[in-house]
């Protein structure tokens, strides 16, 4: 088997992503279904306004969080599949040489769906565990009738089982597409396509130092890592700042949940991206060291290029959360009383930025230590 069950443990980031997406969606969708069942009991104008605002808010939370996290999980899965195809290209090449079709050679990648299934199942269970508190918080003013928590099997199907199957199929088909190459290019160490070379050629420029060239080519060829760096800072920025506002606009529980999800997602993706930035370059690092490049020069070439993208992601997240809350307060909750006007929280933005800077620089420091540990023996082992 090219990819085994133990390899799925490396996909913890996808499991965390699936956990967060399903946790948020289960809570809000379950609430929507349950509140819909008592809609006929809601008669007063204030309660009706709150009811429709709650529905809109739930739909927005589900589509934004769920959609965004599902897309990111898919991107992350494709990243891992590509990583494993590159890592195991010789074994896959041998299978193809023996007569296996691309699809047959890729079947073992279906096991990656287990990570999504495990994360989604855990998120589903966690959502039901937190639900009593969530329902209470949603109706803290007592305007809406009491709602009982019901279990809805359709949510289990749509949020846990089908995504697990979909992601397993996505892994197999994407691996199969990546294997549509001549056997010899898999057996030899050349997975560089003409298209990739063309893109690199278009981007080649005048005189830059070697480390600057390497930094530039890394950003060009490792777009998934750039995406994860931006996504990580975006999540951290948007969700930590939003959680401060939620304390005031909604409840402490909502604020805490959003903060927890934001920090977890940010840390997971940041660790994934930064370790991939080092792990995918061990031979380059070893070669640079053999030639006499210092650890600092290796770090500059391989990691420093991501910093501007990370802080740009932070700025994007700040703008996103501001617009989202402004829309929520001014449009969705416009008919609901006692909702304070929302203004940009500069203090929260500064605290969030400082916390992110510490987190980011800590991740880079850990990666720098990993670079120091890369031995020149890496290039003597083959």
């Amino acid at each position: 088997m090219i990819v085994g069950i133990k390899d799925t443990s490396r996909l913890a980031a996808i499991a965390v992503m699936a956990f967060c997406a399903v946790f948020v969606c289960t809570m809000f969708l379950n609430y929507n279904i349950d509140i819909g069942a008592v809609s006929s009991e809601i008669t007063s104008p204030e309660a009706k306004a709150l009811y429709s605002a709650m529905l809109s808010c739930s739909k927005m939370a589900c589509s934004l969080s769920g959609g965004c996290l599902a897309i990111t999980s898919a991107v992350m899965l494709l990243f891992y599949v590509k990583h494993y195809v590159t890592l195991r290209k010789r074994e896959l090449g041998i299978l193809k040489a023996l007569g296996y079709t691309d699809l047959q050679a890729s079947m073992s990648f279906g096991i990656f769906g287990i990570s999504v299934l495990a994360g989604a199942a855990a998120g589903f269970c966690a959502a039901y565990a937190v639900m009593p508190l969530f329902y209470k918080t949603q109706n803290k003013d007592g305007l809406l009738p009491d709602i009982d928590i019901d279990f809805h099997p359709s949510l289990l199907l749509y949020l846990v089982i089908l995504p697990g199957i979909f992601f397993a199929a996505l892994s197999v088909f994407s691996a199969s597409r990546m294997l549509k190459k001549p056997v010899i290019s898999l057996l030899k160490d050349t997975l560089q396509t003409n298209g990739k070379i063309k893109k690199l050629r278009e981007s080649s420029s005048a005189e830059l130092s070697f480390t600057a060239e390497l930094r530039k080519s890394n950003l060009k060829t490792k777009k998934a890592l750039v995406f994860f760096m931006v996504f990580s800072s975006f999540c951290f920025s948007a969700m930590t700042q939003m959680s401060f506002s939620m304390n005031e606009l909604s409840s402490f529980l909502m604020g805490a949940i959003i903060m927890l999800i934001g920090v977890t997602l940010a840390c997971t993706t940041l660790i994934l991206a930064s370790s991939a930035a080092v792990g995918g370059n061990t031979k380059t690092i070893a070669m640079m060291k053999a030639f006499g490049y210092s650890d600092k020069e290796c770090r500059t070439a391989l990691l420093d290029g991501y910093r501007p993208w990370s802080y740009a992601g932070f700025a994007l997240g700040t703008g996103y959360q501001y617009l989202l809350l402004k829309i929520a307060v001014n449009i969705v909750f416009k008919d609901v009383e006692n909702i304070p006007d929302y203004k940009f929280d500069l203090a929260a933005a500064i605290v969030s930025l400082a916390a992110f800077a510490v987190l980011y620089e800590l991740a880079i420091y850990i990666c720098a230590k990993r670079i120091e540990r890369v031995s020149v023996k890496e290039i003597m082992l083959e």
Partner: protein
Amino acid sequence: MIDIVNASKFYGTGQSRFQALKSVSLKLKKGGFYVVTGASGSGKSTLLNIASGLERPDDGNIIYSETDIAGLTDKELTQFRRKHTGFIFQQYYLLPNLNVDKNVKMGADLAGNKNYREVIKAVGLEDKLQKYPGELSGGQQQRVSIARALAKKPEILFLDEPTGALDEQTGRQILDYISTLQREYGFTVVMVTHNLNIAQMADTVVKMNSGKITEIYSNSEKKTAYEIGW
């Protein structure tokens, strides 16, 4: 230039521990062309690794210009390699996302060598500057790795089986480039190979077996890359 004194090297732990080098001593003189030969597992690559500062011996000394590089820290060893050595490996290890020009620049930047394109010209790749490793043949890739190593103006060039992955014709061409460039630039060559025929190109041949040097001899008459057998 390099004085290897009673160098020993062990690998593995417990029952799998074995001695790859057994108290080896060897003097490498400036400007010499040394070929180290021996069967697989004879310790020739280990000797090259410790002589070049890629690894430290577990015992013994590696004296380079009155400095024992066996006692240097990792950072000091990196500085040593930066200033003095060049490497050519069997697998080339070119960076796939950088073109020929930028790959050679990897070596040139370390020596502040602005005229590195002369070395690319010297290995006959001046028309391939914008090509990427994936677009080159094995022989051309090895020529890029030669240019990369020489662009940093090394005092000693270490080569580990440089023709191991090449066919006869390309292998001879690569060896010819190395010996021609050595005469032109004057650096010392230490080449590890299992191909005994290549030894006929060397000033000095070092034969190894089971972690020991079994024979050292000088060639009274050196042959060119096109005169040796294969």
